[in-house]
């Protein structure tokens, strides 16, 4: 059993060297992650060796090609049955290649691709000293407002490092929902979190705010990582293994005494409960569930908007994927313990996100709280503990991520002299000035609100149906009530855009390059297609809804 083999690496280091098996790596099945990580490393080399003038083009080209290639690899794996019949655990028990992993990896890669498009946008900000500039600081290291910053802007520097950072983050996210032991889970968590902390800090405008957001995100994220790691240690003490399968077997009592050295702690339920709670806490932090959501509004507001859009979509997908695998593969034997807790978390998350969002006056903060409420809806599917629950969460994540990226991409377009005009009062009358942009944003808002014929409704129906079938009728009732509350603030934005008189010095809508247009158009198309004809994608999510153990 490969799980035991990996374990032997840890405990029998004193034995003669020739007893260690050479690790067997299934490169083909790991190719999506390997392509992205490899491209990220090449991206770092480009930063070092390619002349400044051509770095941007080289990085954009590399990112798009590698993400497209990785997506193609995911599709190829899925069509060859690695999501269903040939699903298995690879890399000596460290990584699972199965339906949920491939589905989520595909979603993350598409979201990442759209993310690259919005990262690469250079037509929105006014030309500075003859150079087209993107949303990122000219030189992240220069102090805001200092001479060195001015010099960097004048010299036309750009932070092209964002592209390799994005690729590293995507690489970590691809690994996160596929991780099949706790150490891989933790490494994946760090690999995608650290680049995101950095990305949050490099906004071109409002740099202090951006750096503040990054520091907050980093401190709270580090705290959550520490919790995760502590939880992992406790679980190891309980089960004597970090492998998902082994822990699950120890939890349900089918094997005992994996590690004689841990005889004193193994089987101690306190370790299991506290460890599992800490681990789940770390993941709930990443998905932004109440009460671990405090970072969300500040970070969403302060980060450069393309980063926010990507992060809001892809982090959620990756973290929910990992949470699903943890709860369904490692801790199903504990479901009587975690279900009530998750019930409570889902309820406060739905209500908390929806209620606090009402008072927001900044569009990015509003979307942040809306994302919290959506995390609650997704949790409703998670606690269904059924195959339908898994597939409904997968579908919801797919639907939600493209709406989110599209919505944040629209936010980047509405600008005034100070950059993006994110204060809601500035959006007044946008529908009169730019009906098309306002209509597109209204479509996204309606999808967030879960109005029928949009993807948001299909997703919401799927998770609520799964929850109701799983006996969580109360969750469904709370869910529809918080949907009604949430509808209020989405509608408020629509009112503002269409029924308010435009202000004379209101923002203008910048005309984007085809890159951002593609991202927005893709978001609209996915929103409407998943709303009107979701069957194919529900099938896809349904087929992908089985975890390999």
């Amino acid at each position: 059993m490969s799980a035991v083999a990996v374990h032997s690496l840890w405990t029998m280091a004193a034995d003669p060297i020739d007893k260690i098996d050479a690790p067997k790596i299934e490169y083909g099945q790991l190719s999506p992650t390997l392509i992205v990580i490899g491209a990220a490393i090449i991206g770092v080399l480009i930063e070092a060796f390619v002349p400044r003038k051509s770095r941007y083009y080289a990085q954009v080209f590399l990112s798009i090609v590698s993400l497209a290639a990785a997506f193609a690899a995911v599709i190829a794996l899925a069509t060859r049955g690695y999501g269903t019949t040939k699903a298995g655990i690879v890399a000596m028990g460290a990584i699972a290649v199965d339906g949920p992993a491939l589905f989520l990896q595909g979603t993350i890669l598409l979201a990442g691709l759209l993310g690259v498009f919005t990262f690469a946008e250079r037509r929105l900000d006014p030309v500075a000293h003859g150079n087209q500039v993107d949303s990122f600081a000219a030189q992240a290291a220069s102090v805001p407002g200092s001479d060195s910053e001015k010099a960097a802007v004048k010299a036309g520097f750009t932070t092209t490092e964002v592209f390799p950072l994005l690729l590293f983050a995507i690489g970590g996210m691809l690994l996160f929902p596929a991780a099949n032991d706790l150490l891989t889970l933790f490494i994946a968590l760090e690999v995608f979190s650290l680049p995101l902390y950095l990305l949050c800090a490099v906004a071109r405008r409002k740099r202090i705010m951006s750096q503040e957001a990054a520091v907050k995100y980093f401190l709270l994220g580090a705290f959550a990582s520490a919790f995760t790691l502590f939880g992992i240690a406790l679980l190891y003490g309980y089960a004597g293994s970090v492998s998902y399968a082994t822990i699950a077997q120890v939890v349900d009592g089918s094997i005992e005494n994996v590690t004689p050295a841990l005889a004193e702690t193994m089987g101690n339920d306190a370790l299991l409960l506290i460890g599992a709670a800490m681990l789940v806490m770390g993941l709930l932090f990443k998905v932004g569930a109440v009460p671990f959501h405090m970072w969300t509004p500040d970070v969403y507001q302060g980060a450069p908007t393309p980063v926010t859009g990507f992060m809001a979509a892809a982090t959620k997908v990756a973290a929910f994927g990992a949470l699903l695998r943890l709860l369904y593969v490692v801790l199903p034997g504990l479901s009587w313990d975690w279900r009530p807790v998750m019930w409570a978390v889902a309820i406060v998350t739905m209500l908390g996100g929806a209620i606090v969002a009402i008072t927001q006056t900044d569009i990015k903060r509003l979307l942040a709280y809306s994302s919290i409420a959506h995390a609650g809806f997704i949790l409703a599917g998670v606690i269904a503990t059924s195959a339908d629950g898994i597939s409904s969460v997968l579908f919801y994540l797919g639907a939600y991520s493209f709406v989110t990226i599209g919505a944040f991409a629209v936010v980047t377009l509405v600008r005034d002299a100070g950059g993006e005009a994110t204060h809601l009062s500035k959006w007044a009358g946008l529908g009169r000035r730019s009906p098309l942009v306002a209509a597109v944003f209204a479509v996204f808002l309606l999808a967030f609100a879960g109005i029928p014929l949009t993807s948001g409704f299909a997703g919401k129906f799927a998770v609520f149906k799964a929850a109701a079938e799983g006996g969580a009728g109360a969750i469904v009732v709370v869910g529809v009530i918080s949907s009604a509350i949430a509808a209020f603030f989405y509608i408020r934005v629509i009112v503002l855009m269409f029924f308010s008189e435009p202000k004379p010095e209101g923002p203008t809508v910048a005309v984007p390059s085809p890159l951002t247009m593609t991202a927005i158009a893709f978001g609209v198309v996915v929103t409407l297609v998943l709303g009107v004809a979701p069957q194919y994608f529900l099938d896809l999510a349904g087929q992908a809804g089985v975890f390999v153990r």
Partner: protein
Amino acid sequence: MSFPLLTATAALPALGAIATAAVPAARRTAAKWLALLVSLATLGLAVAVLVRFDPDYVGPKGNFYQLTESHSWIADFGVRYELGVDGIGVALIALTALLIPFVILAGWHDADPLETRSSRWRPTQGFFALILAVEAMVILSFEATDVFLFYIFFEAMLIPMYFLIGGFGDRAHKDGEEVASTQRSYAAVKFLLYNLAGGLIMLAAVIGFYVVAGHFSLQTIAEDGLPDMATSTERWLFLGFFFAFAVKAPLWPLHTWLPNAMGEATAPVAVLITAVVDKVGTFAMLRFCLQLFPEASKWATPVILVLALISIIYGALLAVGQRDIKRLVAYASISHFGFIIMGIFAMTSQGQSGATLYMVNHGISTAALMLVAGFLISRRGSRLIADYGGVQKVAPVLAGTFLIGSLATLSLPGLAPFVSEFLVLVGTFTRYPVIGIIATFGIVLAALYTLVLYQRTMTGPVKPEVSAMPDLRVRELVVVTPLIALLIFLGVFPKPLTDIVNPAVKQTMSDVQKKDPQPEVEAAK
């Protein structure tokens, strides 16, 4: 496969909406004519539905839905694209298709831009496209025999309605400058939130129904019978459905959005709300509450009847006290919806036939009254009753049509609403005499508010502001005359309508396993 007539009836206005929205900004008039032609063609298709419809048809295995279409749509949710009509649905489709051309014609100039703004802002195209979109969704919700399909259009129609209410108001106080009315956007938001909240509660019940039944198809239920439900489950689900329909209908105490919405919207949009969209609520009570949850419906009947009674009296009393013409009509409508709901839940065949006829007749009579009121308001630029006086001396035709509309609203014998109101009252009285008697006071109050309205606006000395008021124009006459003709025709000869409706009502009655109470004295032949 036969021609999908029901799909076509809904698809035509939907496509027409897209086409109208796509008309270039400068070709406003073309957009109007396009919308009108589409609505007339839809009326043609609705007539075809009416002709193909056979009132006494009973299909295989007791499936009484006709002109059925059935396709798989979202198999994972058990959702089918399933259409079919019974007599009640046909009558309401006909009403909808009939009223929309008048709504479009009456609102001909309501959405003209006041000045040529930026070339991309196209309110006229938007206005007519939204009206057609509402028509498509309303017709689909009358046709859907799949609970989920119905729910989708029940909810989705809120969005175009919301833009119609919030985006287009009276031209009254604008002085050349388009002032954004905070009142109006308040009304639109209130409309949306009330209905969305109702709809979302219903969503929980729809999901619950699926968990219990495993499918959404009314046709399957017509063939195989209802799924087994625990009594408490059935009651909860019933409440979830009924709540949404009671908001839409609207039933006291969930009615407060209606006066705002009707007061702020333009008269044609107000007609669209009360005569067309709200009918989906009462229709759905008949179709879904009674057919899916017969036991729970009987369980809830006493409470609902009392609420309906309160609606009748309360709506009428508040109508008496209104100073705003459009709000008065709104409260009168609340009173009338009370009658409709009372008729539905009286559980007698007269009551339910009466309620169905009431839906149609109320649609026509409110349209007549409200559209004439809209013409009046557009002339003077004020909605306040006190700003008028002596109009009948200046504009006799306008006053005359207004009078007929008013008389229809108070259910004068000889006009269509009388037949339905009488049936509802008789139907209620045979089972619940006390409630029937109290409800009759609603008619007395109706006489009060309509006649006082007429008296204050039309009679008396001519106010100086109205002295130059022009009489009805040709376009306006084209709108009003057919409606009035129809009111008189259906008042004298309601048989065509009752023939369509009665078998369907009988079916509903047998679904709830209720028999009419036997009269104690045989009526003299």
